[in-house]
């Protein structure tokens, strides 16, 4: 698969954007400025980025509670994301959803979701709509190792194959569902081992190698567009931070985290691009500085935006 230089730089930019956004959110959360829960994607950037590099605005994704990375990779505007996590009325969801429920229908983002395993049936349905309406759009379902054991995931995959739907299931295996390690919770070593049970192709990729993810996802998405049905791609990765901000992570060893940090997808890709002469170190710095400025702008936008008025409490419940 040919990935252009522009696309590679683009992916590098997006991964940095996700990382820096998540780090800034973690700082704001620690400062008490963000209500509720946030579940950060830091460490997993290559998965969302590599997959979404193959998608158009007219393709759909379903996301998870750990959705900021998917949203940014699919083209989400960090201003409106920041405003949403701060609970402001200028957020994507007018402050009504928060971190776990950010959505942008215009970008094909069918929402982050607070229910583990809710995404797969929704993505199967979005794929049904694509097939039914005769477009060559596809649906991509991001789901985790936790969701891979949920009944809804099993049902969605079975139905997707029965109806030969254009859906690609991307399993982000970061080994932990809160404190529950896949060694204890999953009956097979790889989520992709289950693909045969649903008669769909299933492969394991290094989820911290954005090019590998991009290529594998590209193949699966092409299959789906051509009417050949669903696929399962398992991306092995790791979250640098806790399940939620504030999680003491008592269930993982520091050594394990350090091992995975050495496989951090971003410096890895930066080195590759620099070695290939596609990106100079100076340009890399420029990219990061530019992103820092965008994040500062987004934060300013969020902080200066008003909260929704209590009079808006009952708005947007039903479509008139």
């Amino acid at each position: 698969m040919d990935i252009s230089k522009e696309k590679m730089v683009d992916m590098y930019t997006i991964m940095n954007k996700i990382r820096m956004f998540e780090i800034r959110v973690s700082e704001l959360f620690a400062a008490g400025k963000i209500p509720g829960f946030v579940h950060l994607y830091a460490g997993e950037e290559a998965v969302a980025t590599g997959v979404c590099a193959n998608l158009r605005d007219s393709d759909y994704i379903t996301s998870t509670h750990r959705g900021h990375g998917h949203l940014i990779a699919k083209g989400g505007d960090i201003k409106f994301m920041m405003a949403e996590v701060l609970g402001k009325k200028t957020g994507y969801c007018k402050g009504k959803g928060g971190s776990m429920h950010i959505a942008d229908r215009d970008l094909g983002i069918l929402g982050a979701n607070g229910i583990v395993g809710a995404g797969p049936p929704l993505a199967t349905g979005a794929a049904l709509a694509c097939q039914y309406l005769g477009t060559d759009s596809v649906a991509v379902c991001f789901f985790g190792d936790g969701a891979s054991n949920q009944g809804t995931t099993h049902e969605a995959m079975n139905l997707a194959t029965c109806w030969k739907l254009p859906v690609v299931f991307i399993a982000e295996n970061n080994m932990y569902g809160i404190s529950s390690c896949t060694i204890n919770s999953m009956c097979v070593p790889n989520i992709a081992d289950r693909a045969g049970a649903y008669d769909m192709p299933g492969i394991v990729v290094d989820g911290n190698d954005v090019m590998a993810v991009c290529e594998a996802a590209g193949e699966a998405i092409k299959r789906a567009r051509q009417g050949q049905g669903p696929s399962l791609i398992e991306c092995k990765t790791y979250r640098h931070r806790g399940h939620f901000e504030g999680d003491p992570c008592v269930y993982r060893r520091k050594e394990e985290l350090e091992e995975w940090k050495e496989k951090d997808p971003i410096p890895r890709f930066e080195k590759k691009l620099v070695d290939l002469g596609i990106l100079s170190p100076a340009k890399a710095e420029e990219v990061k500085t530019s992103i820092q400025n965008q994040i500062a702008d987004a934060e300013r936008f969020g902080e200066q935006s008003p909260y929704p008025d209590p009079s808006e409490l009952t708005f947007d419940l039903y479509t008139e």
Partner: protein
Amino acid sequence: MPTMTFAQALNDAHKLEMQRDPNIYVAGEDVGTYGGIFGVTAGLLDQFGPKRVRDTPITESAIIGSAVGAASCGLRPVVELMFVDFIGVSMDQLFNQAAKMKYMFGGKARIPMVLRASCGAGIGAAAQHSQSLEAWFMHVPGLKVVMPSTPYDAKGLLISAIRDDNPVVFLEHKILYALEGEVPGGDYSIPLGKADIKREGKDVTVIATAQAVHTALSAAAKLAAEGISVEVLDPRTLNPLDEETILGSVRKTHRVVIVHEAVKFSGPGAEIAALVAEKAFDRLDAPILRIAAPFVPVPFSPPLEKAFIPSEEKVIQAVKTVMES
């Protein structure tokens, strides 16, 4: 005017709407080749083909969840839950996804889907195939809940439910499927949120749903012979409730008896009773009574099932009690 059964009326609604809008599809267990176990979707597969009329595996979470996803992306699913009792295995897709997406996403989502389900006791189907769970769905902001009692209402309400851009739970009491009634052959719709006075009266308002409407009507006929004039009010839609019609009737008669087959404790009647007590308290001449099922699962044995279902005698007794107050 043609006569058709409740099931045929629903079938007719499907046909008219599916002819009108190519984005409507039907899915569910045994809805295609079999025509639905109560016959509601008979003939649809032949007429519209397998793209639009889909037999599914036994997979309620995926049937409903994929309907939510498809509805988010431009289709209008009309999916069947064979028995409302099966909502348990798939409730998340309905109450956490379908119902909440529009609000959580700040208004940008639109989930135009109908979830039809059979409900109710009386055929010996026992505890897990006979429930009336409308109170569960009424309690979820974001859903609409419809419960017709006649073939005429069934067709007109289903047409409106299909045209509604929100997730609608459409509950069909299984005893009613064979009920015959006059139903216009063409296109007509009954607005959601509008109650119907099935029988006018002046002494007491009996508010009833689904099969209980007919119990109330036969009780009213007997009471008329004893000089008691009963008004039978059928809400037709349980959420949104037609407050205006309900309160208007109460202000006229000053007495209320509510009859439903859902269990009494925390049933739909509790909401209606609270509404009436809150907004028409000083117009009441008697306490509000509810005749409903006792707080047990639906029993199997015929005499027990009969004792479970609100009877005409119990309605008559309740009416006489409020008349004496």
